[in-house]
């Protein structure tokens, strides 16, 4: 394994854990599922802390919707959790899960 090969293997592992890629060869698929769930849970907790209003309005659907959003939008290198929270709220609003009038930036600009 060269440095490039280590990099490729690490990228493949993260795609599998964060973006729905297949488990890389040799890994225990059960462990991949456990790790993926743990990473998703941590990301969801942080977004909930940053934007509790969105989580509160989505109520019981928050976890399920966040999982759907997260899989389609894995966190990019260099992105911030604050941006993640804003992007999730926008994603949920676009899909009609959040009332637009509740969005904080409306209140601020008003």
């Amino acid at each position, binding site marked *: 394994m060269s440095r490039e090969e280590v990099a490729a293997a690490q*990228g493949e592992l993260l795609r599998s854990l964060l973006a729905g890629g297949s488990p890389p060869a040799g890994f225990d698929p059960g462990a991949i599922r456990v790790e993926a769930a743990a990473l998703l849970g941590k990301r969801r907790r942080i977004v909930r802390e940053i934007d509790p209003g969105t989580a509160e309005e989505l109520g019981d659907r928050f976890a399920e919707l966040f999982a759907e959003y997260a899989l389609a939008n894995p966190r990019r290198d260099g992105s911030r959790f604050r941006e993640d929270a804003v992007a999730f709220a926008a994603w949920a609003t676009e899909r009609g899960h959040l009332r637009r009038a509740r969005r904080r930036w409306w209140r601020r600009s008003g």
Partner: protein
Amino acid sequence: MGEHLGVGIGWRSEIDLTVERMQGVDFVEVVAENIHRDHLPESLRVLRARGLPVLPHAVSLSLGGAEPLDTDRVEHLAAVADLLDAPLVSDHVCFVRAGGLDSGHLMPVPRTRDALEVLVANVTQARSILGRPLALENIAALLEWPNAELTEARFLRELVERTDCLLLVDVANMWANAKNLGADPVELLDGIPLERLAYVHVAGGVEVDGVYHDTHAHAVPQGVLDLLGELCSRVRPPGVLLERDDRYPSDAVLADELAAIRAVVAA
């Protein structure tokens, strides 16, 4: 061996007053990424004015990542260390970013010769920027890479010896790996160069569906304190620090956890 630190607790803005008021806190640690490089929170200025060491602890250098080191992050850590006049800094033996993605958490590296070379190169480069001692911490993992060529002990030993780093031994992470991966924590303690110990991390966690999660948000299990005792039977640790990051209990409960740590160290 690192310089004497005593018993400490992770400083977090949510418990800043708790930490300031707590008796018998000899040092604290701050997550470097949460601190501005040009000014400190008032609470940390208070602690520094009392002469308490405040050690910056980084979580995002991705020292085990095989892509080029993000030197901006290393420079941030160095600037925070300057601001705190910190005797040492730390990060983990892990990677965080790869292939354009950010895991948001500490991921294990393959225990291969090639992955070790990546770490040695990154740590050497980071040290040249930091200009002060760097301690490397063992992580908790929920999965293992296939085809390991080295034991964790051998891997850590070669890494810190070749890069002349210190060790930050997290006994809660060792406990988690014992529970989840069947790792042998005593074998690990026997195989790592404890003469390079900077300090020790202790934290709590919770078991969910048969998996132990090192949450830093639950009570410290007896098994973790027992492992601290195992470590103390081999070496007198320069410092032991409690990490608590969420679901903060009452000040009294935190004080009890520090007292339990102190009792193990003094035994």
